[in-house]
């Protein structure tokens, strides 16, 4: 075995890497002839939409690929040593000491029944000959270095006692405790809220600068790329389409695909479309409230305010955005308005008719007027019913004949730019973006007056997201719909909304025209939220 030469040359040099896909997939290779390198002390961002093969590359470098995805060609040189050819034993030595990885989901990447300190200790015991006292000192040092408060308490905690951001810091501490030359971060902030994300990105940048390691950072979020990368490599369907310095790739992209992607990244500046005055109010909520109470027999009653004192209004032809981080109560409000859950207090008016406290029977005639599109396109359609059945279900419930309903469905497929032949097929034959179009068609089949989009584009890739946003915008204009747009993504909100309500911990902390809220936020939370938006001052695709 050759001793790795440290010091000169790139930390990771991937040459002509090709990884086969099992037969029957939609393409032959997961990764095709990909070459790039990560220099010492730089952050290289590997970006691409879902299915581009970016995570497969990360797993290949770490030697974590399942047998069904064999490396068929190429080299992955870690300090000059090809990790594709080393023995399992050597690979085990290399992990943690020379390269380590931080995963997307801090919730599941840590062992729930082991104290955080013990999990870091495991790495040390496995790879070093340090005594207990030295190990303990090193663990505390590392925990301090990832800026966790009260390290003594943190190492004694179990993962569930920590927040998502804290858990991700523990993951980073584990990855860095042996000072590897290469850190692979696979979407490490995707599961985190934007303010936490900003802190973790800052942390990774600082640690990288301090230790001078190479970082391979995998993400689909161009805001994050703008925030953290020195160089960028863009993947499309397993092939590398463009590599270069951050500014060159993001501001002056050369490849058509990159140009298209950059064009699809929504701008953080509000669209500035004039708001038509004096339109009738479609939706109004007054002091809407939803509380969950824990009614234990022996314990004290615990009350959680999922939403409190929410007063909003949406007029015809306008879009109100509700933005906030996870747990802010934005989806609770949407679900109360659709009456998927029953509000605990306050009132909801649809065209002046109160619906918050009607019985389900009395509510039925009004259900038609409010329709909702959900986040997850893969779970929003019943897998056992055809697309056509899904779209006609609502109208048939309200007395339309099947023939008439199918006629309407065909018109709607045209409106959402899909082929009418799709009506006969089952949902699993469609991609995420197509499914979301089908869900929009299903909602529109009811001829609603208010369309609620609950994170409707959050699960989609940026280019598909741009198409669906464009479609929603066109529909709103054409049908003069009122729209309630719920999102955690400030960029999307800026593009779509006329008014914005910012929610935090169940309350609306700021509410006003999008132009005002985005340009001069008043509330401290709104300011913090906007400050944390990754890549906020970056001009994508415009140099």
């Amino acid at each position, binding site marked *: 075995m050759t001793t790795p030469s440290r010091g000169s040359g790139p930390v990771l040099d991937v040459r002509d890497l090709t990884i086969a896909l099992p037969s029957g997939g939609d393409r032959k290779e997961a990764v095709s002839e990909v070459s790039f390198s990560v220099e010492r002390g730089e952050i290289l961002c590997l970006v691409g939409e879902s299915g581009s093969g970016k995570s497969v590359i990360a797993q290949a470098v770490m030697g974590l690929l399942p047998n069904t995805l064999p490396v068929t060609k190429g080299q992955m040189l870690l300090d000059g040593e090809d990790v594709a050819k080393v023995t399992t034993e050597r690979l085990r030595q290399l992990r943690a000491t020379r390269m380590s990885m931080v995963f997307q989901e801090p919730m599941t990447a840590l062992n729930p029944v082991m104290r955080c300190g013990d999990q870091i200790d495991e790495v040390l015991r496995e790879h070093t000959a340090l005594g207990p006292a030295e190990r303990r000192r090193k663990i505390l040092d590392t925990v301090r270095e990832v800026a966790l408060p009260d390290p003594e308490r943190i190492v004694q905690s179990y993962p569930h006692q920590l927040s998502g951001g804290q858990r991700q810091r523990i993951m980073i501490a584990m990855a860095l405790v042996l000072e590897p030359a290469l850190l692979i971060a696979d979407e490490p902030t995707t599961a985190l809220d934007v303010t936490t994300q900003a802190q973790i990105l800052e942390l990774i940048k600082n640690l990288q600068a301090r230790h001078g390691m190479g970082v391979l950072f995998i993400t689909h979020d161009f805001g994050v790329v703008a925030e953290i990368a020195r160089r960028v490599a863009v993947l499309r369907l397993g092939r590398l389409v463009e590599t270069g310095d951050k500014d060159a790739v993001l501001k002056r992209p050369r490849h058509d695909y990159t140009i298209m992607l950059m064009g699809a990244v929504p701008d953080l500046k509000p669209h500035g479309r004039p708001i038509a005055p004096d339109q009738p109010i479609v939706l109004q909520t007054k002091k809407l409230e939803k509380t969950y109470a824990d009614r234990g027999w022996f314990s004290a009653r615990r009350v959680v305010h999922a939403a409190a004192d929410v007063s909003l209004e949406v007029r015809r032809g306008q879009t109100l955005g509700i933005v906030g981080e996870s747990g802010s109560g934005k989806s609770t409000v949407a679900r109360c308005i659709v009456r998927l859950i029953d509000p605990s207090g306050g009132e909801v008016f649809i065209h002046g008719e109160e619906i918050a406290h009607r019985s389900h029977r009395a509510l039925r005639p009004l259900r038609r007027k409010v329709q909702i599109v*959900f986040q997850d396109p893969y779970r929003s359609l*019943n897998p056992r019913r055809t697309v056509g059945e899904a779209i006609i279900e609502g109208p048939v419930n309200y007395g339309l004949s099947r023939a008439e309903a199918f006629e309407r469905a065909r018109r709607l497929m045209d409106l959402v730019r899909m082929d009418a032949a799709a009506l006969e097929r089952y949902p699993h034959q469609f991609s995420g973006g197509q499914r979301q179009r089908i869900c929009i068609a299903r909602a529109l089949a009811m001829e609603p007056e208010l369309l609620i989009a609950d994170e409707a584009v959050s699960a989609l890739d940026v*280019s598909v997201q741009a198409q669906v946003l464009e479609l929603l915008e066109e529909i709103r204009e054409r049908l003069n719909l009122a729209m309630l747009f719920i999102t955690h993504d400030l960029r999307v909100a800026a593009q779509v909304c006329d008014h914005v309500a910012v929610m935090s911990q169940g309350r609306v902390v700021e509410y006003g025209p999008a132009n005002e809220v985005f340009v001069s936020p008043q509330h401290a939370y709104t300011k913090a939220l906007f400050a944390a938006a990754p890549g906020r001052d970056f001009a994508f695709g415009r140099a």
Partner: protein
Amino acid sequence: MAATDIKRYAELSVESADIRPHESTWQRVRRSGSVRLGGGVIALLILIAIAAPWLGTVDPTMFDAGSRDLVPGKTGEMMTDEGDLVKHTFWFGSDSLGRDIYSRVIYGTRVSLFVGLVTALVSLVIGILFGLVAGYIRWLDGMIMRVMDGIMAIPAILIAIALVAMWRASLTTVIIAIAIPEIPRVTRLVRSLVLTIREEPYVEAAISLGSSTPKIMFSHILPNTIAPLVVQGTFICASAILIESILSFLGVGLPPEIPTWGNIMAEGRIQFVSYPHNVFIPGVFLTITVLAVNILGDGLRDTLDPKMAKRL
């Protein structure tokens, strides 16, 4: 996003606009080796059951004092109902009353398969109804599930013996007796499936489309529970075949003159040392049948419900 050009996005986007070809579930099921093996054996057994009269059998209840306790392969004579004496080769031997074990085993296939299939069907249908109601209509949940817990607390064999003792021993009684202890298991399974499926956005979408509760239960939730239920059904079928044999063997199942594998074994038990074939041959049939049903169930589970297959 000012100069957006949707066509351009659609062309370059990674998501292709075509509708994907796909392999249907049925094609996947047919390719599975376990499904083919288990299904093949069961198909053969069903054929045997249907064709029993033409497979060289005689009336399985007919006995002849002159042909008692014959070893397999011996030829003897039997008196038919019309009083004719016929020569007959006892391929599997005869029992202590002079009945042809070959005929009894072949006819016994009918009883076993019938009991297995009907029990599975009955307990699935009833279990699905209770499970759907318990899972979807929350205020009935506690009531239904406590009753189910109660049934589950009594050993299956005891319920069966009690029911058969209470009524007359007949095919219907035996099927009901075996189905009752299975119902709570199906109910629990369906209830747990319903509890997850009811949270799916497509169910919420159906609510906001104004669909009625029965429609949501039967056309949105029920079809999505089918895969695990088919698998569960095969396991109920296998266990019903076994329990029927146990009940017959214990003498509390079908009347002894009816040819079932359990009855044949019970009858042969006394002379097991001198004539082991009386117990051995129906035992082999029973084992093969239960094994085939279980293999089929495993194959269906792997192909219909990959998530469940990984868990087990």
